[in-house]
């Protein structure tokens, strides 16, 4: 396993080209007319040129991170966005058609009803722990105990099914009783496999899961409709698919921030082994979820690797080796990992420049973009990082000046996508409009 995902595959380049072509073709998108289709394809080309670093795009693609801004812009609450799919659809449509960005941001929303049915505990959401006008928020805890590393390492799927899910989905508690699956390999083992599924608690759990699934289908149908409409007007989706750095899977959702930070001192070997164990799974998840969207760029939010969260040595020991493998695994399948480095990455720029050329997007939040361009510009497209605090508290004049400054430091000679450092919730609409306008005008490259 140690040898996998280390080297760039010889056919990675060709696979990437094929995937760009699939994305650009936009098959299945209900285009409004031929012009809309051409606009869609032009926008894909802007992003493709920025990613591949082979030529300067005609202009900088402007793809700010919507976050929860569209809901606020359309005047609906966070609760509405999670419970009233019609309202969500309208908000998403209004935002995209009003602002005419270069990409469609699928809303970072989930159906509240499904969470309720499953008795989801990993987050609190509007009307369920946080006020109806607030966004959903993560609930930190040790959902995996320190003594359970080998349960995770031995069989991640069993760990998720038997331990993690029962803890984060109250309705799926009976999943504790599902046997370890590779054990079921003989006729005499069919009864121990089937038995738990006949019990009353399990029947209830499965019914809940079915209901949550039905609710989700309704939600996704609404999303598919608005997505089709926006993309059909000429706006390609900015990302499709999702995966995470193995260290973040453990640090965010299993052990928690405190847990994983202490584990680096107390059980470093187990932690490293667990990250390795999750690596092929995170590659596979990224590949599968991207394929399902017909997209090329899986969104990969990076959390615990930020400046301040780890020392350089810890970053290079615990975080980067398996993230690099996930990147390589995705690149080898032709995908373009969209690495969203939340927080600052000023200390990490040298280490993270060890990626194959023209194959990834490094999207920064609070990193010095001039430095990022210097250190990474020759190997990777960079994206970011218009400050959201400025969009919330600033005035249009400041926005314009900052926008130009950002484009001058990060946009030189291509290899750059204009976006914000974080989701734009809370931003003043006038500021957002000023930002988009300046970025579009100022981001045109001279031939």
């Amino acid at each position: 396993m140690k040898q996998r995902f280390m080297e760039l595959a010889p056919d990675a380049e060709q696979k990437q080209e094929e995937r760009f072509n699939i994305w650009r073709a936009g098959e299945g998108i209900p285009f409004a007319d031929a012009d809309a289709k051409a606009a869609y394809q032009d926008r894909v080309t802007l992003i493709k040129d920025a990613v591949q670093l082979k030529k300067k795009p005609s202009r900088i693609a402007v793809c700010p991170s919507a976050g929860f801004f569209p809901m606020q812009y359309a005047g609906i609450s966070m609760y509405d966005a999670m419970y009233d799919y019609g309202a969500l659809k309208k908000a998403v449509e209004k935002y995209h058609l009003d602002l005419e960005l270069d990409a469609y941001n699928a809303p970072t929303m989930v159906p509240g009803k499904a969470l309720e049915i499953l008795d989801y505990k990993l987050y609190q959401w509007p009307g369920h722990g946080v006020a109806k006008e607030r966004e959903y928020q993560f609930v930190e805890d040790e959902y995996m105990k320190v003594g359970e590393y080998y349960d995770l390492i031995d069989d991640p799927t069993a760990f998720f099914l038997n331990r993690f899910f029962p803890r984060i989905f109250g309705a799926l508690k009976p999943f504790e009783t599902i046997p370890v699956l590779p054990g079921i390999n003989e006729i005499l083992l069919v009864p121990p496999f089937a038995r738990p599924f006949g019990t009353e608690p399990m029947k209830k759990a499965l019914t809940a899961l079915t209901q949550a699934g039905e609710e989700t289908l309704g939600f996704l149908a609404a999303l598919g409709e608005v997505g089709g409409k926006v993309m059909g007007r000429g706006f390609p989706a900015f990302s499709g698919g999702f995966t995470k750095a193995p260290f973040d899977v453990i640090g965010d959702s299993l052990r928690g921030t405190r847990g994983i930070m202490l584990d680096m001192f107390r059980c470093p070997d187990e932690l490293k082994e667990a990250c390795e164990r999750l690596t092929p799974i995170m590659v596979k998840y990224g590949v599968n979820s991207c394929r399902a969207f017909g997209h090329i760029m899986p969104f990969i939010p990076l959390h615990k690797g930020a400046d301040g969260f780890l020392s350089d040595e810890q970053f290079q020991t615990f975080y980067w080796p398996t993230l690099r493998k996930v990147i390589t695994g995705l690149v080898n399948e032709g995908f373009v990992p969209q690495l969203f480095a939340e927080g600052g990455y000023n200390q990490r720029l040298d280490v993270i420049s060890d990626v194959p050329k023209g194959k990834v997007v490094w999207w920064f939040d609070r990193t010095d973009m001039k430095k990022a361009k210097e250190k990474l510009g020759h190997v990777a497209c960079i994206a970011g990082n218009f400050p959201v605090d400025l969009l919330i508290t600033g005035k249009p004049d400041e926005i314009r000046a900052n926008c130009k400054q950002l484009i001058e430091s990060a946009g030189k000679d291509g290899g750059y996508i204009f976006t914000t450092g974080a989701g734009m919730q809370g931003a003043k609409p006038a500021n957002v409009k000023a930002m988009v306008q300046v970025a579009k005008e100022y981001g045109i490259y001279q031939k």
Partner: protein
Amino acid sequence: MEELIKALIEMQEAEAIRKAKELLDKGTDPVKLLEACSTAMEGVGSRFEKGEYFLPHLMMAGEMLRQISDMIKPLIKEEKSSKGKSKYLIGTVKGDIHDIGKNIVTFLLDANGFEVKDIGIDQPPENFVEGIKEFQPQIVGMSGLLTLAFDSMKETVQAIKDAGLRDKVRIMIGGGQCSEQVKEYAGADAYAPDAIAGVKIAKQWIGGK
């Protein structure tokens, strides 16, 4: 004692706990032991400022300190004297339920001799005001990870003003997407980019008074 301090600074958890136990068993004055811990925390803080230590080291320092004070607590008879200590009120503002940053700042302030009152997460402005009235801190810290915290911070400062308490306290903000810009927006006195910086600012404020 020197060995204990060294083990604490160098993040040798098992060694530090063993040494602390050994010292207590030998009849070392628990107050002296706490002073040693305090010295060690200064060492940890200075490594943090030099960019040698990061959040995990602060977490581990907090964890070691917690274990040692658990050992010591039953041995100290008199009430912990808070007389003369500077007071710091801290909380995560309304609408935000994040507490990791706030907890670290609380631990560090405590280790640096502040008397800290932590009013918890998702605290509306009126709770900050009530807290100030009751606890009478010199400093108020508002924590928030999310951008929605900006408005909550602004509202909280306003509520403190409206209650006529603004000139009684200095206010600092920190967490997530906070910045100097947000400090201005909220009407706070300082923005702390990290926990150690927050403690430093607090110490300067107290020293300057």
